[in-house]
């Protein structure tokens, strides 16, 4: 039985989480025969390079309406392909758009959907809860298993099968499928290093004490060419904007080092920095939970420790 993967792409370039989903889908044991060519579905343009990743057939949905994103129109294309192909599994990236489209598909077909899976076999899945602080093993009761793959849960692996066949179709969109679509765009002013992409993040929590308390944090971040982050205690106090918040309901970061001062280490905060290669925690409390997820620790008052680190960097740089 077939495996169908929904590919998200930007002007024909598949997104990384989509390629991870593809790798995940290939390893999916269907009737005990893993590794057979998978079917891909894309809208607008045929994504490049899918043959390298084990795709035998690309189902390409074409429609004038695909000029601007309309989640239900994409979902309708997936539903039509499911009805034609009768796959046993449909996989998409657990990205914002992937989860959105698959939830529409699940609602249209009234089928269960397992979001943000890290592994799966048959109808048994393991998915994340609490932004990754907890895992859930679940059974999906359905003839077609719909699932999305947690980004970065699997590494992209190649499996060349040659140029895939492209099967074009025009989905039969209902007016309701186009009721919600992007009608305009607001560009943001580019300012400095983005938190999500920063190689170094220096952040502080309630221990910073006030908005002004972030002066020393900004200073250290600037010296290191990094970005400033914070905890939710800080955004809720109005000391920093929500765009600086690291965590389950803030930004997910993946720097070379995360310097976290005056942050206790709540699971919801740590869910946002699981991608950090190293974590350095600075905290007055030697029993703070963050020391159990950090690589390095300094026990002390951030108001003394952080300026001392900045001074030492200046000394070393000046030498």
């Amino acid at each position, binding site marked *: 039985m077939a495996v169908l993967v929904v590919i998200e792409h930007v002007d024909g370039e598949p997104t990384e989480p989509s390629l991870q989903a593809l790798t995940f889908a290939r390893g999916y044991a269907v009737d005990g025969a893993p590794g057979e060519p998978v079917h891909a579905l894309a809208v607008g343009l045929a994504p490049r390079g899918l043959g390298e990743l084990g795709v035998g057939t690309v189902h390409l949905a074409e429609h004038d309406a695909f000029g601007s994103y309309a*989640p239900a129109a994409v979902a309708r294309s997936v539903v039509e392909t499911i009805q034609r192909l009768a796959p046993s599994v449909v996989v998409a990236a657990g990205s*914002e758009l992937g*989860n*959105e489209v698959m*939830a529409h598909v*699940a*609602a249209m077909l009234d*089928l*269960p*959907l*397992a*979001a943000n899976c890290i592994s799966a076999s048959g109808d048994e899945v*393991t998915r*994340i*809860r*609490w932004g*990754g*602080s907890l*895992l*859930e*093993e*679940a059974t999906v*009761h*359905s003839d077609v298993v719909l699932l*999305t793959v947690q980004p970065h849960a699997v590494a992209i692996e190649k499996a060349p099968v040659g140029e895939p066949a492209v099967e074009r179709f025009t989905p039969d969109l209902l007016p*309701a499928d186009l*009721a*919600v*679509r*992007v*009608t*305009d*765009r*607001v*560009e*943001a002013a580019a300012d400095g290093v*983005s938190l999500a992409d920063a190689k170094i993040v220096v952040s502080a929590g309630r221990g910073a004490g006030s908005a002004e308390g972030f002066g020393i944090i900004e200073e250290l971040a600037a010296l*290191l060419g990094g970005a400033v982050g914070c905890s939710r205690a800080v*955004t809720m106090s109005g000391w920093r904007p*929500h*765009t600086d918040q690291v965590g389950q*309901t803030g930004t997910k970061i993946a720097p070379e*080092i995360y310097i976290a001062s005056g942050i*206790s280490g*709540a*699971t919801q905060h740590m869910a946002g920095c699981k991608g950090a290669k*190293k*974590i350095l925690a600075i905290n007055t409390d030697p029993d703070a*939970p*963050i*020391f*159990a997820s950090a*690589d*390095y620790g300094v*026990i002390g008052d951030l108001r003394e420790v952080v300026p001392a*680190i900045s001074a*030492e*960097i200046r000394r*070393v*740089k000046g030498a």
Partner: protein
Amino acid sequence: MNILTCVKRVPMTGGTIVLTADEQAIETRHLGFTISPHEECGIEEAVRLVEAHGGESVVLTLGPAEAEEQLRDCMAIGAARAIHLVTDGEEWDPQATAAAIAAAIHADGTAFDLILFGNESADAGNYQVAIRVAYALGLPVVSGIKGISVADGQVRCERESNGGRDVYEVPLPAVVSVLEGLNLPRYPSVPGRMRAKSKPVAASTPPRRESRLARRRLVVPAGQGKQAEILGHGPDAAPRVVEILQQIGLL
């Protein structure tokens, strides 16, 4: 305008998650409870919209009897009344949850202009209840929203994407799922809490659809509980910190 916001009671876990012996739930004996930050922003937005445009803000939850605490919290912030779909405390999957919420909206009879959800719940994070409710009610749905304004029978929604924001303009009534950052929610005031005590809660026990996403067990992922190498105490640790930064190649 009339606005319904759906919220879900979840435990406030601290630095570590401890499971019950049967691995079916989080051990909550020593924990407080809350709702998702996304949902807090939803409640705040509903209250602000009603302040600006008139109408009524209503809050709904599906959960155990104890979830009345979260309904009172939301009414303390300004919701006028609550709908409580009381469960026996066992897990409902997203399809069952959405079916019960859609039925309750029908039964309530209010013509809601806007139905707000969190984009994903704090604990299960299934990313789908809002969308399922919208399909059940035949309403348009927009997800992941960080900016809302209402004018001329339309809701204008902004969603972050690729460093900017995509705009969606959708006719009311509509379903919108929101993200933290939409606004800065207020804390409930003491008079707000007093008033909330006497606001009405309509409780009922919904029939339960069978679970099709059936949890077998919960697992705490490996990798928690490592111990940091302590580089030192106070400002004297600075040279060691800088050594580490140099070792990693960041200086």
